[in-house]
């Protein structure tokens, strides 16, 4: 992330309260409409689903300076996932409307988000291709 963009994000979120979460705490429950956009300052957050077989399926791990859940904030798609602190976490909590307004008025931040989104979606496509047609080894690796 370019330092200018990182500074802008940091500056925006620094207007909002810092909150601490202990390891294991659920920041967002599945099917819950989040009340905030979380900007991670320390720690890691796992985003996961619980399958029909009762297994936890991790779909994403957020590290600083990530902010989430943007899919819900932008598209208002229902949130299907649990967001759990994988370690002790500190995050700044901004109101979703204000975070969206910040994105819309800062094209460089929006572009950076888009860029990270493409990196993520490429990773997912690659993983999917290996799951559908790869060898047992590549399925394990991806």
């Amino acid at each position, binding site marked *: 992330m370019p330092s200018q963009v990182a500074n802008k994000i940091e500056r925006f979120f620094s207007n909002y309260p810092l909150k601490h979460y*202990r390891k*294991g*705490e*659920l920041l967002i*429950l*599945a*099917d819950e409409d989040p009340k905030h956009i979380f900007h991670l300052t320390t720690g890691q957050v796992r985003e996961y689903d*619980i399958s*029909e*077989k*009762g*297994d*936890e399926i991790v779909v994403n791990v957020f590290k600083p300076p990530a902010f989430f859940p943007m899919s819900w904030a932008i598209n208002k798609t*229902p949130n*299907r996932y649990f967001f*759990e602190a994988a370690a002790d976490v500190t995050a700044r909590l901004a109101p979703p409307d204000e975070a969206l307004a910040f994105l819309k008025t800062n094209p460089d931040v929006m572009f950076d988000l888009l860029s990270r989104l493409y990196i993520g979606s490429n990773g997912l496509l690659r993983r999917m291709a290996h799951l559908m047609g790869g060898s047992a080894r590549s399925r394990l690796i991806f």
Partner: protein
Amino acid sequence: MIKVLRDGRYKLIETRQQIKILYLDETPYVWLFIPGIGHVLEVTHKPHKADHVLATGNYRLYAVKQERRFSQHKHLELFIGEGQWQGYLLLTALPTNKQPRTRLVATDETISVPNHQR
């Protein structure tokens, strides 16, 4: 606040003497029904030989504080198959050597099952 305290695999067995033992990972607890009190989990240090297995699967143990949707207790949830979990409220925490017994009460509240899967 909802916190995942533990998760892992459970196994519920019954011995030849018809005593139910709940294993959370490797830790065994005796599962008793005491008339007038109800279901109780109790610490055990003896080895227990399974006559048969009643259930096995994943479990999740949550601590809940100040959440309007869920009771303020520890919630033990056992996966019972077909996307279903059975929840139990632990009226204290899991039993320990200091507090060797805990009442548990079955509940419909389940944190592990999102509404879209119900």
